[in-house]
Every structure is written in structure tokens, then in C-alpha cells.
């Protein structure tokens, strides 16, 4: 089943999102909860600012020595019985995973939520290979039923209200829940997925951390679906970006402490699990083979161009606090990752020419950096893309012409003030009751909101008059 087709045009996607009143309700419920809980968790940690700097330093250390640590990780993982694969891009990564599934004779695979999997298009690759894919995270299960992409990296179904979910479950689940209360819906999903955990030949997970000192990979969930995905099947496949490397178990736990507070406001995840190789002699459960696919997909380029972005823990705090994300939701961004971090990452994966609108869709209010648990300078990185877009001459002609015109005027103060002296009285002619609701050349603004009536002269002009005592 192919996914709901979205418009390739960013403006159309945004218009569609803005016209959806239910989306706004769903987003505000989920992100509002997340913002309140995060604020409470951070308030209870007096040294949070210092901890954030320490977390950034832990990630930077691993990034500085990434090649060294990946080799140490690989050595230890192989010693534990794991098979380690390397993939330069999404095609290589998907091929490795599909080939392992085919060799294992897999008809059904279970999958525990992994953003890297979404990034490399793994759901589609499995589908194309005729392998039945069962998403086990509750939100991923919801969007699989709805035939959609995730709209948030922590809450992939953030765009759905409970009423939507009730309808989906009623249509697709064997048990028809009589009431749309959340508790019955969660119980229904638990029951629905239970058989698949044991029917699957392969379980696929992502990794929140790759631990160099042990060769283990770490998954964190609150539902417990990761362990049920990775333990019963014969084969466990991990797909992980190479930037997930950390030096030690201790540092993985230290970063989790920040990641969880930033993401959900909890002190720790319910299930924090380190997976190190396949079943050992005498073990009563666990996979017989354990594969780790280490994926580059643009990360080696990011090390040169924007190493700070490799710190990203995928907590979603920047999404929850972004005024643009909260208005348009995740699907409008068009990539695997939405919000501020997505607007930085998508041009890396898809090319700037394809995604130049994303870094523009930002107010640069700096909220994203303020709430980032590893202090990524997201506004600076977004501005970097805007500069590249300008220098690469991929801005539309109208935009280039108007910005060039603006730059010409702004660099000539006399001309600028002369222009203002003409424009302000002219704009005032269109004002009714203190607001301008319609004006030539300004429909892009006034279609959505009114402009305040400007004063009769500019600040500079008024200041000059007052200084001269007039």
C-alpha cells in the first residue's frame, strides 16, 4: 500500500495544513503537554545549563574521534557475535536490510520506531520487496493504519486526535472498541500486535546510541515495544546513523538523562536497553543473529560543513517549541524530519534545490536553540542554508530581484529615508480603524492578517525632530 501522496510544492502543503482546524487542535494538545512537562523537568535541575554544555561536550568528543570510536565499536560488536555492515547511502542501507530479510526467509518483519529508518526510506524498501511490515510503536501503528508518514519525531501521530484514532482502530482492529477512550484504544493495540511479535522472522530497530566500549547498541522506549520487537524473532537488524556513537555506557546514560527531559519531561525512559550481540549459550530467548547497519547518508559531509548538527539526539524539543511547526505540523515539511532540526537536515539528504523553502520557513526567534539539550545553534545553521541558497542562485527570480532591490535601498540611508517618507503616508491611505486589511502588493500578508496603520513618519524622523526640540 503506497503512502498518501503529498504535494511537491511547499506552499501548497502549508496552505493545506493551515486550512485544517483539527490539525491545530491535535498539535496544540501534544506539543503543549510536552512544553509544560519539559519546563517543569528543567526547572527541577538547577545546573541544567551546565549539564547541557557537558552533554554537548560528550557528543563533540565522540564526533571529533568518530572514525576511531566506530572502529572500536565495530571490533567489540563483532567480538559479541554481531555482524556489522556499512552503508554509504540510503540505497545501500536498504539493500543490506532487505537482503538480510530475504536470506532469513522473512515474510513478516516487526519494526520498532526508528527515524533513521524513515530517513532512508526503509518502510518503502520492505514493501517493494514484498515483505509484510508491522510497526510496533503505538504512534507508528496508528500512522501505518492511516497510510501516512510520521509528523513528529517523538509522537509520529501528533496530528491525530483521539477521535481520529478511534475511527482507524474501529476500521482495522479485530476487536471493535465500543468507546473512544484512550485506555481502551491502547489495550486494543496491545492485543492486535501481540501475535505479530512472535510471527515475525526479523525484528528491526534503530539505535539511540552505539556504545564504543562494549559494542552494544542502546534503544529507549516507554512502551516496551523495542524489546518485544528485537527479542522473539530469529534475526535482529539495527539501522543506525554513524553519529550515534558515544564512548561509554556511562555517557549514553548521561545523555539519556537530558534527552528524556527535553523530549517528554520524564526523568528517565521506562525501557532503556543495551543490546550486545545474539543469543548466548543457555539463553532462553533472544535473536540467533544480530546485524548492525551503520549508515552515513550525508553524515560525513555534515562533519565538514555542520558538525554541531551531528550532536542531535532526536528529542523533538525544537519541534514542540517552534511557532512554525506548531502552526503547520510535520507533514508540510515534506521530509522525514520536520521542524527546525528537519529544516537543517532535509537539505543535506534531499539537496538544497529541492528543499530551499524549509530554511526560509523560520522566524529565527531562537527558541529551538534555547530548548536544545545539546545546544545546537539551529538558527545559525538555518541562516547558513539561506546564505548557500542565495550564493547558489537557487532563489526564484522574483525573490532575488526584490532582495537585490532592498539591499540597494538599505545600503543608501538617504534613499531609504526618502522612500519611507513617501511610503508611510501612502500606506496610511489604505488604513481603516487603525488597521490595513487590503493594499496593493501586500496581499501575501493581508490575506491572512491585518497590518497595523503606520505612524505618519519613521522612528528616525521622529527622533531627529525631538532631538532638535521640535
Amino acid at each position, binding site marked *: 500500500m503506497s503512502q498518501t501522496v503529498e504535494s511537491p510544492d511547499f506552499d501548497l502543503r502549508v496552505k493545506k495544513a493551515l486550512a485544517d482546524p483539527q490539525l491545530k487542535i491535535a498539535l496544540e494538545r501534544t506539543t503543549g503537554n510536552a512544553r509544560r512537562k519539559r519546563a517543569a523537568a528543567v526547572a527541577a535541575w538547577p545546573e541544567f545549563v551546565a549539564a547541557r554544555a557537558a552533554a554537548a561536550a560528550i557528543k563533540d568528543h565522540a564526533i571529533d574521534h568518530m572514525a576511531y570510536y566506530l572502529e572500536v565499536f565495530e571490533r567489540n560488536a563483532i567480538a559479541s557475535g554481531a555482524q556489522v555492515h556499512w552503508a554509504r547511502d540510503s540505497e545501500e542501507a536498504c539493500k543490506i536490510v532487505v537482503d538480510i530479510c530475504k536470506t532469513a526467509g522473512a515474510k513478516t518483519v516487526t519494526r520498532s520506531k526508528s527515524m533513521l529508518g524513515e530517513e532512508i526510506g526503509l518502510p518503502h524498501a520492505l514493501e517493494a520487496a514484498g515483505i509484510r511490515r508491522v510497526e510496533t510503536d503505538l504512534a507508528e501503528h496508528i500512522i501505518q493504519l492511516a497510510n501516512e508518514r510520521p509528523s513528529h519525531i517523538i509522537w509520529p501521530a501528533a496530528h*491525530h486526535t483521539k477521535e481520529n484514532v478511534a475511527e482507524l482502530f474501529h476500521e482495522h482492529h479485530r476487536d471493535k472498541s465500543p468507546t473512544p477512550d484512550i485506555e481502551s484504544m491502547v489495550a486494543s493495540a*496491545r492485543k492486535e500486535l501481540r501475535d505479530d511479535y512472535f510471527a515475525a522472522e526479523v525484528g528491526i530497530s534503530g539505535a539511540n546510541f552505539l556504545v564504543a566500549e562494549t559494542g552494544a547498541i542502546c534503544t529507549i522506549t516507554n512502551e516496551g515495544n523495542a524489546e518485544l520487537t528485537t527479542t522473539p524473532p530469529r534475526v535482529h537488524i539495527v539501522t543506525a546513523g554513524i553519529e550515534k556513537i558515544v564512548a561509554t555506557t*556511562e555517557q549514553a546514560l548521561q545523555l539519556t538523562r537530558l534527552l528524556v527531559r527535553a523530549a517528554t519531561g520524564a526523568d528517565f525512559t521506562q*525501557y532503556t536497553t543495551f543490546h550486545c550481540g545474539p543469543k548466548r549459550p543457555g*539463553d532462553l530467548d533472544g535473536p540467533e543473529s544480530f546485524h548492525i547497519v551503520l549508515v552515513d547518508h550525508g553524515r560525513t559531509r555534515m562533519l565538514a560543513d555542520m558538525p554541531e548538527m551531528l550532536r542531535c539526539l532526536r528529542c523533538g524539543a525544537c519541534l514542540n517549541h517552534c511557532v512554525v511547526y506548531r502552526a503547520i505540523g510535520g507533514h508540510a515539511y515534506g521530509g522525514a524530519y520536520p521542524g527546525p532540526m528537519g529544516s537543517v537536515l532535509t537539505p543535506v539528504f534531499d539537496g538544497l534545490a529541492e528543499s530551499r523553502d524549509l530554511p526560509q520557513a523560520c522566524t529565527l526567534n531562537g527558541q529551538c536553540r534555547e530548548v536544545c539539550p545539546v545546544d545546537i545553534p539551529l538558527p545559525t545553521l538555518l541562516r547558513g542554508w539561506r546564505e548557500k541558497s542565495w550564493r547558489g542562485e537557487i532563489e526564484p527570480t522574483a525573490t532575488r530581484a526584490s532582495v537585490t532591490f532592498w539591499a540597494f535601498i538599505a545600503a543608501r540611508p538617504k534613499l531609504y529615508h526618502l522612500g519611507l517618507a513617501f511610503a508611510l503616508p501612502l500606506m496610511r491611505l489604505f488604513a481603516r480603524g487603525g488597521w490595513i486589511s487590503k493594499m496593493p502588493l501586500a496581499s501575501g500578508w493581508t490575506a491572512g492578517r491585518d497590518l497595523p496603520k503606520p505612524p505618519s513618519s519613521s522612528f528616525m524622523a521622529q527622533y531627529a525632530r525631538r532631538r532638535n526640540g521640535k
Partner: protein
Amino acid sequence: MTARSTILQSLRATRPDAASPRDIFAESDACAAAMRKTLPPLAVNDLPGLFAARASAEKVGATVERVAALADLPAAVARYIADNVMTPNFALQPDPRLQKLDWGGLRPNETLRPDTVLSVGLALCGVAETGSLVFHSAPTAPTLFAYLPIHHVVALDAQTLYLRLEDYATGVRGRPSPRNVNLITGASGTTDIEGVLTRGAHGPGKLHIVIYG
């Protein structure tokens, strides 16, 4: 050129190996030490008390009781079964310390199945800061005992409690890594529908911890 060498070469082209493994190790230790100076404050009177307070916090969602010795576990399980109106059948983690207990009228012989209602286990240790139980997978500690049932009752030796996550990590550092290290912090929960916390998503909806010693 293989994908492996392409990736490692381009990483090294940007960040050449400039430090010895010994220096890298020292720098890594300094990073963890710097973080240890910033940790959230903890009011520590006694470790079991802190653990119990953290594990039973609403957002963690476990229930906790204290008994004198591991021999008191069967009575605690019997009370739990009576309180939750369940049959006396359950799956017992195959740990000899649990198997040799006198279970009286209880029936700890159930095989673990996808629809098992109750399992009873023994944690390797606990972390008081977060109220987390730690399990290391082994023939005596299969992973699924902590994930399949709806109810999980776990015995925890008070003497095995660590204060911080860091204390656990440094405590096991250098020892062979088990296949699974499971840090379990409360009952399974999800906030996937409208951000509302709901229990029993896939793992146990109820976690009861019996601290002994």
C-alpha cells in the same frame, strides 16, 4: 573501495587521528566527570527510601513495598494476587534463588507465553536516582519475563542499590557485557494519543517492586 573504507576515510579527511587512544580515553573520562558535577540534586536519606519514592512517582508508575528478606517474597506475591483478584498461576524467572523459595499454595510453574498475566522476577540491582530496576540477560534471567506479562512483580535486594546512573555504569565497567542490559523504570506507558499518559502499552501495565534486606 568498500563502504566501510569510504566512510572511515572521509571522516579522517575532516578529522585526522591526532590523539593517541590513551589521550582519547582520558578526554572521554573528563567529559563524563564534567557531567557528574552538574547532576540534578537528590535528597538522600536512605537509598531504598529514595528508590521507593522515585519508582512510585506518578510519572514512573510502579508500586513498592519493603519486606525483611527474600523469603518473604511468596507472601508479598500472594498479597498482590489477592489484591488484584488473579489466579495463583504465574511464570517464575528461572533464577535458583527464586525457585528454592517456599511458594506454599501458589503455582509458580506457568510457562511464559504471549498472554501470561503475571511474572515474578529478581532484579540484578537498582538505581535510586531514577527508580530503575536493572536486569542482565542470562539463562537465569530471560529478557521477555519483564516485557510480556501485564503484571510484573520484582524482588530487589536493597544492598544492590546504586545512587546514580553513573554509579551503576562505573560499577559494571570492564566486566563482560551481557546480551541485554535492561533498565526498567516503572510500568509501560505511552503518550502517543494526544500526549495523555496511558499504562500498559506493550509491556507490563503494572510493576510491583518488593525491596528486601
